[in-house]
């Protein structure tokens, strides 16, 4: 009984001021709460994706949509985006190393690992730029037009084109396709259904393009911000500003939290857009 009272008293005193009950520096607390609010924003975007996908009769098939890679590689489902994920994970790991070296007040080590993190972040952005460019200039997906469709019934093509589709090619329900553009004109291929009705390829769910560009763009914007701040912190590390503060490179730790958060968000963007 006596013990519990003194324990409670200690708890009250802890919150009366003059102490840090959380034992975390102010800047780090605020970074955490900012990240919490940012997590809500991203969660809202990703649930919007989920709601619209659930409400649509068909949805683009990710392993078909994301099957191109640089150097003319086609039909390599999810390979390029897996490499992008590895780049981001690796840059998160180099960030952990930078924070470790900072806590040891090792200026050279901190600067080295921060530099590697910046390179990792920039590489990821480069990959994303390639991916966007491929969608916009080669596959002509925009925020309101989605050429990635999915067949809802089986049938036979009565037109050829679209890179490898011949007259007489059969397809089944659930098979994905990409509508191609020739000289600025959309060229949806005609097909005959099993009942003999002639139809042409329909465009895919229109929300897909808008969601893809908006959500991966918002994540890319965070990566851009992160790289910018990492460069600023790197300059300050090299100039010896944080060494003078003698607080274990706290600023490196704070930018580290933000950088890990960007990696954390990518885990879910990767899950929702690419894997499922």
């Amino acid at each position, binding site marked *: 009984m006596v013990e519990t009272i003194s324990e409670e008293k200690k708890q009250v005193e802890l919150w009366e001021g003059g102490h840090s*009950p*959380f*034992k*975390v520096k102010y800047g780090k*607390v605020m970074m*955490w*709460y900012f*990240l*919490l609010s940012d*997590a*809500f924003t991203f*969660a*809202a975007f*990703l*649930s*919007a994706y*989920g*709601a*619209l*996908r*659930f*409400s*649509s*009769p068909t949805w683009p*098939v*990710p*392993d078909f949509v994301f099957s191109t890679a640089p150097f003319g590689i086609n039909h390599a*489902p*999810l390979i390029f985006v*897996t490499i992008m*994920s*590895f780049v981001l*994970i*690796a840059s*998160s*790991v*180099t*960030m*952990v*190393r930078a924070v*470790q070296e900072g806590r040891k007040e090792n200026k050279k080590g901190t600067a080295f690992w921060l530099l590697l993190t910046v390179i990792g972040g920039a590489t990821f952005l480069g990959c994303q730029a390639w991916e966007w460019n491929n969608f916009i200039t080669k596959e002509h997906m925009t925020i309101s037009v989605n050429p990635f469709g999915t067949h809802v019934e089986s049938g036979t093509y009565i037109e050829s084109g679209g890179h490898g589709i011949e007259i007489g090619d059969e397809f*089944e*329900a*659930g*098979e994905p396709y990409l509508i191609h553009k020739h000289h600025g004109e959309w060229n949806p291929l005609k097909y005959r259904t099993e009942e003999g009705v002639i139809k042409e390829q329909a465009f895919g769910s229109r929300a897909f393009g808008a969601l893809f560009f908006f959500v991966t763009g918002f994540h890319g914007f965070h990566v851009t911000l992160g790289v910018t701040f990492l460069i600023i912190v790197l300059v300050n590390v090299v100039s010896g500003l944080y060494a003078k503060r003698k607080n274990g490179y706290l600023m490196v730790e704070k930018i*580290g*939290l933000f950088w*890990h*958060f960007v*990696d*954390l968000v990518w*885990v*879910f963007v*990767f*899950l929702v857009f*690419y*894997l*499922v």
Partner: protein
Amino acid sequence: MSDHSSSNGLNKAYVGLIILGLVTLLEVFFSLLSKGDIISSLEGKDWAFYVGAFIIAVFSFYKAYYIISHFMHLGSEVKSFAMSVLLPACLLVWLVIAFLWAGDSWGYNRERDNVIIIDQAMEPINPSRLELDTAEFPELDKGAMNGEEHNAENHFNVKKEEVQH
């Protein structure tokens, strides 16, 4: 130094690299498997999609836990502070459930409306389609229902005339 190394002496950062890398590879493997890219007979199978999605989601949440707990060190912060971040985030569980639920309902409504529109467009009006099930609405009197039917027929005829013109 000791707080940066695991028991076998390897720096925790590199342990994280191996774990996250392996889990990501597993995720991609299960994703391709459930879409039928590895075993083609699984293509288009609903159960494969749902089982695959569940497994991948579990892996993703493990990755999230690992990043938050070990890379961001929330696991080693004071518990009350960690809870002040994690408990509000639990609200997101309901957000996701509610929106997927709502989306499913929008899809159902859209499909139902589409069926009605297609039926009207494809064939001349069939009065029996518009008859309400009197067993379900016993309080409705037959007269009101006939009125509705009449209106609907008129509406359809007007539409038909417009098309002919």
